[in-house]
């Protein structure tokens, strides 16, 4: 588990535990402002065909100026070989060794395909990528992905865009308990309090996109998420006082030890 002072992904260290997605923003300017306000050092991007009609849509230039590390995702890929190709393109374009493996064949709920994801990760790890798989919150799959060389696992909190928060909390706890690599909750977080809760639970970082992009004031929301992530981490480090379970004693269990 990643208990160090910095977030360590594949040997690279980061101060910020908030990773941001760049989709769904009303404009590139708003997105850049939000990224700046969040203090994030890692942002995901997706691939698309270059459109000569709209050269001002260039994302790469402004992002490189911010100095953030790019994490190209494989969104759009329906299977592992498409994802591998997308990752190669992403690396070629960005020069970044990071890749977020994201394979969701169903266009409605956008749930990640565990089998194609596993295959893609295994292949990409061999090619020296720093692999961050977006995955169902499955503890066994998480260990499988760790075994094939992923740098972290990214279990979903709830389905992309639904904002249902940490509906997978119980599973995420199990993943955290057994994981030797950072656990990053991705997708479904709606409010900064949920990001704080994820950090308190033991996540090493969170990835937030929709909740920031769709907010009334994205830059302010990004800053709020950043604070929440710092707060959650600080709380965990300070040693949270847990909820109290009250047990009722009928007859003493330890009387057999008296006078031992």
């Amino acid at each position, binding site marked *: 588990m990643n208990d160090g002072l910095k977030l360590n992904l594949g040997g690279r260290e980061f101060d910020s535990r908030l990773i941001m*997605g*760049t*989709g*769904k*923003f009303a404009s*590139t300017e708003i*997105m850049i402002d939000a990224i700046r306000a969040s203090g994030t050092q890692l942002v*995901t*991007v*997706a*691939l*698309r*065909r*270059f459109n*000569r009609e709209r050269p001002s*849509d*260039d*994302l*790469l*230039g402004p*992002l490189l100026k911010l100095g953030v590390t*790019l994490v*190209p*995702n494989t*969104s759009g890929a329906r299977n592992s070989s498409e994802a591998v*190709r997308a990752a*190669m*393109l*992403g690396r*070629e*374009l*960005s020069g970044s060794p990071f890749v977020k493996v*994201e394979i969701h064949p169903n266009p409605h709920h956008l749930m990640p395909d565990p089998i194609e994801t596993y295959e893609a990760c295994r292949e990409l790890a061999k090619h020296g990528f720093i692999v961050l798989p977006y995955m169902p919150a499955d503890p066994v799959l998480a260990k499988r992905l760790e075994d094939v060389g992923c740098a972290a696992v990214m279990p979903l909190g709830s389905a*992309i865009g639904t904002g249902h928060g940490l509906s997978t909390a119980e599973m995420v706890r199990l993943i955290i308990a057994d994981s030797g690599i950072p656990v990053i909750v*991705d*997708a479904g977080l709606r409010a900064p309090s949920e990001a704080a809760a994820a950090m308190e639970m033991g996540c090493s970082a969170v*990835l937030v*996109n*929709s909740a920031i*992009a769709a907010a009334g004031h994205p830059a302010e929301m990004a800053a709020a998420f950043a604070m929440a992530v710092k707060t959650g981490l600080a709380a965990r480090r300070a040693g949270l006082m847990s909820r109290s379970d009250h047990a009722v004693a009928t007859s003493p269990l330890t009387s057999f030890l008296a006078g031992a």
Partner: protein
Amino acid sequence: MNITINGTLQDLGDAGTLGQLLKCLDINPERVAVMVNDRIIPRAERDGSVLKEGDRVEILTFMGGG
């Protein structure tokens, strides 16, 4: 010479290299990744990559994504 660029068939007159094509289309080579017939052509190899009749070229860049 007919070449498909990003899914659209185009007549490009004389043959040339991939590097020349990008220049001709006024595309900043640092901002795109390119595939020819499903093979990624790294930046360093574009000037040496000669296009042929019927080639399928994909020119890709980043957009916002989660």
